[in-house]
C-alpha cells in the first residue's frame, strides 16, 4: 500500500501487560504519515495512552517493534524519544508553576551565561518560537498565573523547542472550554501546514471529525483499524469504539425538587496559599434534584467538596446538611447524616487498592450491627453476602469479591466506590467527577443510577469537568469561576455550550439577584 510506504512512523504488533495483569495493548499496529493529523480514539481504558507512552519511552512493550522512517528503533526513555523528534503533551501538564514561561520552555536545554541562565536569551527564544508557530504566550509571566489553555500552549512550544516533528497530544481538550478548543484547533492546523505530524488522542468524536485526516480506533487494547476521517461517520466510529450502538443521552423525567438538603451560606475557604479558593458563595441542593457545578478545574470546586465532606476546613460561612450545621462534625458525623461522596480521585481517596473488594465495600459500614456479631467479632458471612449482592447489583467484573481492587479495570474500581457510596441510603450525594476516565458501559450505568437515586429522593450535587456530562445529567446548573458562582441556570437543558463557556471563563456573569435564586429553603 502506498500509504504504508510514506509512513514516517510505524508501530507493529505492540503488546503491553501491566504489573496488575491488565492487558493494555494486544498486538496493536499503528502508523502515521508525515504531515497529517492522526486521530487516536477509543474509550477510557482502551489503551490509547499506553500506546503513546510506549512511543514516548515511558512504557516498555512486552512485544512488538517501532519503526521510524523505516528504521527499527528502541525508545528506552523520553530523552531518546525527544532525540528521535517525538514530543508529547501530557494530560497533566509537566510544568514548574513558580517559574516563568521562558524558564519552563528552555528547561533542560538552557542557554547559559557563565554558570547562570541567560534569561534574556531564553525570553528571546520563547518569543521567536511563539511568533513562528503563532502560539501566543507571554514569556515573562509565571506559569502559575496562566489559564489552562495557555499552559497547554507552553507545553506544545516546549516540545517544538526540543525539535519535535511528531507531536503527541493526549486528550488536550479535556481541560479546555469550547472557545479554547477552537483556538487550539486553529493552531494545530497551522502546525500541520508547517510540516509537523500530530497524533491527537481523544474520545470526543466531533473533535476528530473537525480536526483529523485519518483516525485509528482502539477497543479493549486492540486496534479496530485505520480510516480516512472523511469516509466514516461519527456513528461508525462510535460503534467501532464501543462495539455496539451507544446512547449517552441520559433518559430522565423532569425533576420534582422538594425541601433543601444541603444549604451553603456565605461560604469562604482559604487555601494554603492564603488565597480565597472559595469566595463567599451560597447555594442549596434540594431533595429530588441534581445540581451540577460546571467550571474549569481549579476554580474552587475541590476545596468546596472537601469542606462539604469534612475532609477540609472552611474559614467562614455555614454549611448545613438536613438542617444540621456540620462545622463541628467529624467526617464520620457528616456521613452519618446521610452524606455519600464519590471522590474525584478514586485511587487516592476512593479505595485501598491492596485490599479486597469486600474490604473496600464495607469501609464506612464496617462497624454496623448488620456486619458484626454480638461478640467483638465481625460477621464474615454477612460481609460476604453483602459484598456478593453489591458486586452483582453493580455488575462489578471480578473473579471473586476477595480479589484485590488493584487488579480491576478503572471502570470496575469506580463501580466499587459507587456501590459502597450508593448503598447507604444517601440523603445527599456529592458526586465529584463520577465518570472520569472510565469506559462507556460503566459511565452509562453510573449516570443511570444517579438519576434513579434522585427519583428515590436523594439530593445530588454533581461536579464534573466534562461539559457534556454536567449539561445532560444536571437538572439545574451553577458555574464556578475564581471561587465565585458566576451563573445559575435553573433549567440545564436551556443553555448552549458556548454560553456556558463564557461563564466558565469568567467573561460573563449573571447579576447577584439571578445567582441568588439558587438558594432555597
Amino acid at each position: 500500500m502506498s500509504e504504508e510506504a510514506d509512513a514516517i512512523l510505524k508501530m507493529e504488533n505492540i503488546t503491553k501487560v501491566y504489573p496488575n495483569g491488565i492487558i493494555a495493548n494486544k498486538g496493536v499496529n499503528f502508523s502515521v504519515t508525515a504531515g497529517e493529523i492522526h486521530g487516536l480514539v477509543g474509550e477510557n481504558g482502551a489503551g490509547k495512552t499506553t500506546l503513546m507512552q510506549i512511543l514516548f519511552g515511558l512504557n516498555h512493550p512486552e512485544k512488538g517493534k517501532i519503526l521510524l522512517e523505516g528504521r527499527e528503533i528502541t525508545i528506552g526513555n523520553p530523552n531518546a524519544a525527544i532525540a528521535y523528534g517525538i514530543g508529547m503533551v501530557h494530560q497533566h501538564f509537566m510544568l514548574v508553576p513558580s517559574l516563568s514561561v521562558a524558564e519552563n520552555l528552555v528547561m533542560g536545554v538552557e542557554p547559559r551565561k557563565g554558570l547562570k541562565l541567560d534569561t534574556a536569551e531564553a525570553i528571546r527564544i520563547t518569543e521567536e518560537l511563539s511568533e513562528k508557530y503563532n502560539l501566543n504566550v507571554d514569556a515573562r509571566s509565571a506559569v502559575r498565573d496562566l489559564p489552562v489553555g495557555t499552559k497547554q500552549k507552553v507545553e506544545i512550544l516546549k516540545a517544538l523547542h526540543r525539535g519535535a516533528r511528531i507531536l503527541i497530544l493526549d486528550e488536550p481538550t479535556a481541560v479546555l472550554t469550547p472557545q479554547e478548543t477552537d483556538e487550539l484547533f486553529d493552531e494545530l492546523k497551522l502546525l500541520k501546514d508547517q510540516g509537523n505530524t500530530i497524533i491527537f488522542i481523544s474520545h470526543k468524536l466531533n473533535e476528530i471529525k473537525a480536526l483529523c485526516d485519518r483516525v485509528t480506533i482502539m477497543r479493549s487494547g486492540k486496534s479496530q483499524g485505520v480510516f480516512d476521517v472523511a469516509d466514516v461517520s461519527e456513528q461508525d466510529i462510535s460503534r467501532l469504539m464501543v462495539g455496539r450502538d451507544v446512547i449517552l443521552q441520559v433518559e430522565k423525567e423532569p425533576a420534582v425538587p422538594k425541601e433543601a438538603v444541603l444549604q451553603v451560606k456565605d461560604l469562604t475557604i482559604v487555601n494554603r496559599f492564603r488565597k480565597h479558593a472559595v469566595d463567599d458563595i451560597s447555594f442549596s441542593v434540594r431533595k429530588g434534584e441534581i445540581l451540577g457545578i460546571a467550571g474549569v478545574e481549579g476554580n474552587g470546586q475541590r476545596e468546596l467538596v472537601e469542606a462539604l465532606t469534612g475532609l477540609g476546613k472552611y474559614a467562614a460561612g455555614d454549611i448545613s446538611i438536613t438542617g444540621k450545621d456540620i462545622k463541628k462534625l467529624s467526617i464520620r458525623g457528616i456521613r452519618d447524616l446521610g452524606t455519600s461522596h464519590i471522590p474525584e480521585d478514586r485511587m487516592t481517596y476512593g479505595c485501598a487498592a491492596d485490599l479486597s473488594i469486600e474490604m473496600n465495600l464495607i469501609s464506612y459500614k464496617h462497624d454496623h450491627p448488620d456486619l458484626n456479631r454480638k461478640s467483638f467479632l465481625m460477621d464474615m458471612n454477612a460481609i460476604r453476602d453483602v459484598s456478593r449482592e453489591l458486586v452483582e447489583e453493580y455488575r462489578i467484573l471480578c473473579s471473586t469479591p476477595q480479589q484485590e481492587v488493584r487488579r480491576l479495570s478503572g471502570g470496575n474500581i469506580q463501580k466499587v466506590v459507587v456501590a459502597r457510596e450508593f448503598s447507604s441510603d444517601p440523603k445527599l450525594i456529592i458526586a465529584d467527577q463520577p465518570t472520569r476516565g472510565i469506559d462507556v458501559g460503566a459511565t452509562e450505568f453510573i449516570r443511570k443510577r444517579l438519576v434513579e437515586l434522585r427519583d428515590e429522593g436523594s439530593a445530588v450535587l454533581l461536579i464534573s469537568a466534562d461539559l457534556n456530562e454536567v449539561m445532560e445529567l444536571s437538572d439545574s446548573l451553577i458555574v464556578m469561576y475564581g471561587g465565585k458562582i458566576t451563573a445559575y441556570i435553573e433549567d440545564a437543558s436551556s443553555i448552549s455550550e458556548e454560553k456556558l463557556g463564557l461563564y466558565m471563563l469568567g467573561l460573563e456573569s449573571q447579576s447577584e439577584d439571578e445567582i441568588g435564586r439558587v438558594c432555597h429553603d
Partner: protein
Amino acid sequence: MTKSQRMFEVYRTGLVILIALLLALVIILLVSDVPGEAMKLFLIGPLDSLRHFGNVLEMMIPLLFTGLAISVMFSASQFNLGAEGAFFFGAIGAAFIAVNWHLPPVIHPTIAILWGGLIGSIFCGIPGFLKIKWGSSELVSSLMFNYIAYFFGLYLINYFLRDVNAGAMVSYPFAQSAKLIRLIPKTKVHFGIIIAALMVVFTAVFLYRTRWGYRILVIGKNIRFARYSGINTDRAIILSQVLGGFIAGVGGSIEVLGMYRRFTWQLLPGYGWTGIIVAILARNNPIYVPVAAFFLAYMRIGADIMSRSTDMPNEFVAIIQGIIIILIAASSFLAKQRHKMVVKEAMS
C-alpha cells in the same frame, strides 16, 4: 492476592532464605579450618539433643512476642521501632513486681506480666501520640526512645533493685511464686510458649476479624481512604501502637520470669530488632510469625552450637539476617519473573 501470587511470595521468600544459607556455607568454607564439622553443627546441631532443640524453642518465645508486636504496629504503616525498648522496659517492670511483691503463684506472674505489658504499651504509645499530635516521625522518636529505655532502665535496676551482695549488676532474686513453670524436663522451655501461642491466635483474630483490626489494616494500606471513610485514624493509630507495645512488654516480662532467676541484662537484649526481621519475613501476618520466629531461632541456636565447638564465631548469623532483609526488601528482586508470570496469566 491471587493464589499464584501468594505462591510466588512463598517461593520468593524461600529462595531468599536459600541464598542466605548458601552464602553462610560459603563463609564457613572460607573462614573455618573445620568446615565440614562447622556446617554440620550449624545445620543440624539444634536437632542432635532434646536440650538443643529446647534451646530453639526458648529462643523462639521472645521472638514470637516481638515479631507479633512489630507486625501489629507495622500493619498500620507506622514504623515504630520501640519494641526493643518496650521489651526491655516491660521486663524491668515485671522484675520489680517479681522481687518486691508477695502473691500466690499463678496470680504473681499474671500481675507482673500485665504490669510489664502496660509499661510496654505506654512506651510504644508515646511515639504514636507524638506522631498524631505534632507529626513527628515515629521511626526517629521510637529509635531515640530505645536509648531512654535502656539508660533509665539501668538506672532503676542500679538504684532500686540491685543486689549489692551479688557481685555483678543484677537485681535481687525473683520470688519463687513469680516464676513461670517449666514444661519440658531437661530444658528451660517454660509456660511462656503457651501464652505466646495464644497471643498468635489473639493477634490474628484481632487484625483480621474485628472492626478495630480492620481499621488498622485500612489505615496501613491507604490512610487517606480510611479518613475519607470516616474512620478515626488517630485513634486507630494509637491503638495499634499501644497494642504492639503491650505485646512486646508482655514478651519481655515472660522472658525474664521464664528464663532467669534475677534481672541480669546489662545491654538491650536485641529481641526487638530480630522481631523486625520476623515481621518482615512474615509479611506482618501473625499467622506466619511462628514460622519466621522458629526459623530465626533455629539459625541462632545452630550458630551458637557451632561456635562452641569450632572456630566459627556465632556473630556470622548477623550476615545471614542482613542478606535476608536486603533481598526481601528489594522489591525488584525477581520482579522480572513476577512480571513474566503476570503476563502469562493475563494472556492465557
